[in-house]
């Protein structure tokens, strides 16, 4: 055989992890696009998605397909809430010194971090710090044979969901008035305001959309891995953030490509490195990318990025 089957399976596993990073990275990219600020609480949205999914499953035992719209709704609500609490208050400073002040920019960054700490601690309080198991009926771990390759059903679900969501996002961004608003605000917030776009509403919408993607990623990983915890959002959050930056901050295809690259390289790395070292691969890729492409792989020199 030309391909090593095991290797191919690792690549597929990697792609499904990469899809999860990608869904989160898109959220980061959208939000960074409209606000020029990193949303540190994005990982918590992911965790909330997973926990709400679990709660619904244990309480109502609905069909799997019914869980998804619910998680989407929860994601949207938490995104809107997050924007209200952690970001909007800082838009009250419109004088020039504040706009150009680094202290102000870093304050917004840390306000989302503070919100994420509070959220995580509250979840710890409610659910405890330990791993929570997902009811086995909902697990997506059945092996499915595709030719000689065995793939977990979860991988297939992740691929399908990601494809649908990416398609929907593409439609939203390029075929709707809302999407036009998001793209306009990302391009030039002031200009967008001058042509009559309600920037506040656009920003809220962006948070809702980004958080829907993040929350979905959370429940998918929960079903795939079989266990969730209040800390689960941290690692993929950092990876997705890294993917966004490697992709050039403002490019969604770039972020997706880099997220897939990270997922696959991590998965392959576990073949010849002990799992402790696999993060070294991610971060080496990041640092090497930045040294040779200071604006990311798909960036185009955005001012004051």
């Amino acid at each position: 055989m030309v391909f090593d089957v095991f290797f191919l399976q690792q690549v597929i596993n990697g792609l499904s992890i990469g899809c999860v990073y990608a869904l989160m990275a898109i959220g980061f990219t959208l939000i960074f696009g409209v606000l020029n600020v990193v949303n540190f609480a994005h990982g918590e949205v992911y965790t909330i998605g997973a926990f709400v999914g679990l709660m619904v499953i244990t309480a109502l035992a609905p069909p799997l397909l019914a869980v998804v719209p619910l998680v989407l709704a929860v994601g949207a609500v938490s995104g809107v809430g997050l924007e209200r609490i952690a970001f909007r208050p800082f838009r009250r400073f419109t004088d020039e010194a504040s706009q150009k002040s680094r202290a102000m920019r870093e304050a917004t960054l840390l306000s989302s971090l503070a919100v994420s700490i509070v959220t995580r601690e509250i979840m710890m309080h409610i659910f405890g710090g330990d791993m929570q198991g997902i009811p086995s009926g909902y697990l997506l771990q059945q092996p499915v044979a595709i030719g000689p390759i065995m793939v977990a059903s979860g991988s297939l679900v992740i691929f399908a969901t990601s494809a649908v969501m990416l398609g929907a996002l593409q439609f939203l961004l390029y075929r709707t008035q809302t999407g036009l608003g998001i793209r306009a605000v990302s391009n030039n917030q002031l200009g967008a305001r001058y042509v009559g776009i309600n920037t506040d509403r656009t920003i809220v919408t962006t948070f809702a959309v980004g958080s829907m993607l993040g929350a979905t990623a959370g429940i998918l990983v929960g079903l795939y891995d079989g266990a969730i915890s209040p800390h689960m959002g941290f690692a993929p959050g950092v990876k997705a953030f890294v993917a966004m930056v490697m992709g050039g901050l403002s490019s969604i295809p770039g972020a997706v490509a880099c997220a897939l690259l990270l997922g696959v390289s991590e998965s392959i790395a576990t073949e010849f490195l002990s799992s402790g070292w696999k993060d070294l691969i991610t971060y080496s890729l990041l640092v090497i990318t930045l040294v040779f492409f200071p604006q990311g792989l798909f960036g185009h020199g955005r001012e004051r990025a």
Partner: protein
Amino acid sequence: MSNTLLSIQGLTRRFGGLLAVSDVSATIAKGELVGLIGPNGAGKTTLFNLITGFTPPSDGTVTFDGQDVTGRKPWQIARMGMGRTFQNLRVFPNMTVFDNVSVGAVGAFGQSPWRALVNGGAHSRAVSERSWEALERVGLTAQAGDIAANLSYGKRKYLEIARALATSPRLLILDEPAAGLNDTETAELADFIRRLHAGGVTVLLVEHDMGLVMGSCSRVIVLASGRKIADGTPEAVQRDPAVLEAYLGVEDDAA
């Protein structure tokens, strides 16, 4: 020739297929007040960036005070005595007026961290006095303690000039200083530049607006489509058919 302060030879800059500046040569002698004008898109800003080291030339040389400075970094060129202002006002917004100006003086006197730790008294005094002098020259001493972002637009222009003066420039390049000023303010500025020049500073005035340049400069260089099309006294340049064509042929609001 020893009187030449700045000399550019065959300066060319391509951006992809676009020839932004093409084979421009010119000299500026010590003590001159020279204007560089041209319609929008003539390549003034590119030429400016080539001279100050922000953009490396595709071809040609820049000689400042007898030394070839082509390819040197902006801070090296600045330390040799080329001070500049920015067209789109770039004061340090969260610093005080005095601290803004002091950065120019630090550029001139050196920036070693050891001076901040031991035996830096003389250095600090020199920087302080130089900064204060520069503020006196533009008349901003009363605002010395204010945060720069709170100054009016017009005063920020003078702050930029003071900051450039604090670097002790032998050549001061002003990039479109009249942009955004009304007629009265432009007249005041013209007056100020003339006095600065009379005080012994060599000035290169890059302007879009002809009025200011024609009224103040002893010599005018005209740029159009990346090429130098005229170089002479204001009167001669104004009569030059090539200049008239460049300004009238292009739809432009230049006076």
